[in-house]
């Protein structure tokens, strides 16, 4: 029996010719990542265990993104601890305010991660980098500490689910609608412990931003990782970004999959995840009159350039509905700069939206857009759990940038229809 793409990458990093699902392995890591929330816990554990140096200063990435620019004194202390650790250990990939971005938009953009890598990150959305053809998964702070100290991590080789993509997305849909549709089909634990392997002729029609968004939310189906094959678009995206040479792995023709799902991209419709679980999905146009108080366009899921373009296309020359607060957050400084250069920021401000520097802030109810009791938000973020964005009696609806921006104009959840 052959191996899946994920299994091949894991076998390579474990120095084995072959691995089987369920097998416990120790694998070499290419990147170990942490952010301003998870790194302080990892640093405490690292120091407590008596480690005095990181295994490779070029293979550790620390990104301050959740609560920066510092939201309060305590957050400032946490950032300071990350900064001091990064400085002490000469961490090459340390991103502070001014250079930072939301980690999962930033690392692919800056070429810190590449195809064929084996990556762990103390952030659940680390699965994003599967879009580049890497094995990448979220872990906790102790695993991060162990990874920084030894350059290794243990894994149970995952079983796999195949998603065979055909067709091409309609103009008012994006990768977000694809992944929300899939989570609605298989549930929030539908891929628990397993890899989600995306394949098929439809892959070529998806942009890199779509693929990054799809892999980003693999965790919302419980998956260990999501992964796309490397094609011309991937190579083009990676060229000139990464100093390391990408390594391309392909699934064997006789690789084993627990299940196979056929996804016709042409049949995807604008989809919304209703409170309080990402699996609670409905077509946007079937939702009726759901009045909203706030719109958030951004996050590691949808704060990339194409997401900003979608928002611009819809908001340019229009006005956000009265009573709606529209918050737009480009995910990295480079994206922010491009939004400024292209006049998007002016258009957003003229439409009545606010534009923030990169931060995870509102997505996890940190700051920059907390909801009050009874308030409702449509967001391009990734989780709509109870209290996720603020008060326990508030509600979060997850959607694509098209749907979120269109809803900002009407004040009700609606799909985007091209004029």
């Amino acid at each position, binding site marked *: 029996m052959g191996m899946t793409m994920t299994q091949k990458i894991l076998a390579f990093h474990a120095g084995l010719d072959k691995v089987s699902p369920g097998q416990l392995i120790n694998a070499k890591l290419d990147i170990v990542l942490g952010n301003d929330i998870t790194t302080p816990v990892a640093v405490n554990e690292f120091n407590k265990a008596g480690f005095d140096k990181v295994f490779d200063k070029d293979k550790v990435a620390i990104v301050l993104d959740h609560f920066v620019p510092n939201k309060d004194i305590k957050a400032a202390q946490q950032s300071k601890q990350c900064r001091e650790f990064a400085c002490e250990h000469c961490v090459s990939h340390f991103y502070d305010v001014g250079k930072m971005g939301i980690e999962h938009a930033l690392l692919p953009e800056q070429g810190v991660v590449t195809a064929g890598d084996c990556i762990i990150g103390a952030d659940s959305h680390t699965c994003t980098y599967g879009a580049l053809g890497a094995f990448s998964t979220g872990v*906790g702070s102790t695993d991060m500490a162990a990874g920084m100290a030894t350059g290794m991590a243990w894994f149970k080789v995952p079983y796999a689910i195949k998603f065979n993509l055909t067709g091409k997305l309609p103009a008012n849909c994006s990768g977000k609608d694809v992944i929300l549709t899939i989570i609605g089909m298989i549930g929030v634990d539908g891929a628990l*412990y397993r890899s989600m392997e995306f394949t098929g002729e439809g892959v070529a029609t998806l942009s890199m931003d779509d693929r990054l968004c799809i892999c980003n939310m693999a965790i919302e189906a419980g998956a260990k990782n999501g992964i796309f094959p490397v094609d011309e678009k991937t190579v083009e995206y990676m060229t000139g970004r990464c100093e390391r040479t990408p390594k391309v792995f392909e699934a064997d023709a006789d690789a084993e999959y627990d299940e196979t799902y056929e996804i016709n991209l042409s049949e995807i419709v604008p989809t919304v995840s209703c409170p309080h679980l990402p699996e609670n999905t409905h077509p946007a146009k079937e939702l009726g009159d759901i009045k909203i108080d706030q719109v958030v366009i951004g996050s590691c899921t949808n704060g990339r350039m194409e997401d900003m373009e979608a928002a611009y296309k819809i908001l340019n020359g229009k006005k956000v509905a009265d009573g709606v607060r529209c918050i737009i957050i480009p995910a990295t400084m480079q994206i922010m700069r491009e939004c400024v250069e292209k006049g998007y920021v002016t258009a957003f401000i003229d439409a009545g939206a606010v534009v923030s520097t990169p931060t995870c802030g509102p997505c996890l109810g940190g700051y920059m857009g907390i909801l009050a009791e009874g308030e409702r938000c449509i967001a391009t973020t990734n989780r709509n759990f109870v209290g996720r964005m603020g008060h326990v009696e508030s509600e979060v609806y997850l959607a694509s940038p098209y749907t979120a921006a269109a809803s900002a104009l009407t004040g009700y959840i609606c799909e985007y229809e091209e004029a």
Partner: protein
Amino acid sequence: MNTQGKVFKYPDNVDTDVIIPARYLNTANAKELALHCMEDIDTEFVKNVNAGDVMVAGWNFGCGSSREHAPLVIKTCGTGCVIAKSFARIFYRNAINIGLPILECEEAAEEINAGDEVNVDFDTGVITNITTGKTYKAQPFPEFIQNIIKCGGLLASLKEGSKNE
């Protein structure tokens, strides 16, 4: 090793945002964070939990964020063990890494009720519901993971491993 205490029962898909809301994550101080454990779905938990008590939940316990603060606050509150039908994978890993005992047992998680007195033997995986008299057997951990638990967590096991080399 074992724990005995009363049961706090929770549904399917308990996520890490309700175990410890992100609004409190501007500190890594476990004692401070533990004051808010479960508060978004159960404001009584922190007031009523005693050392050794047991959490019993449905499928996919600990889904969502990778925050290790989640198993950490459950442990810091004094909870002796979490029994669930299944655990989200990052939570599962984190619980083992920080030394919070967890057991997967569908039947026990289905039948044990809130307030029951339960004894859990981690070495054998036997769960005894003292209130009803019924016993259950949970899935044992693979040997590799048992070793991490025995050493007192992942980093301690790495140290132990490097000593033996």
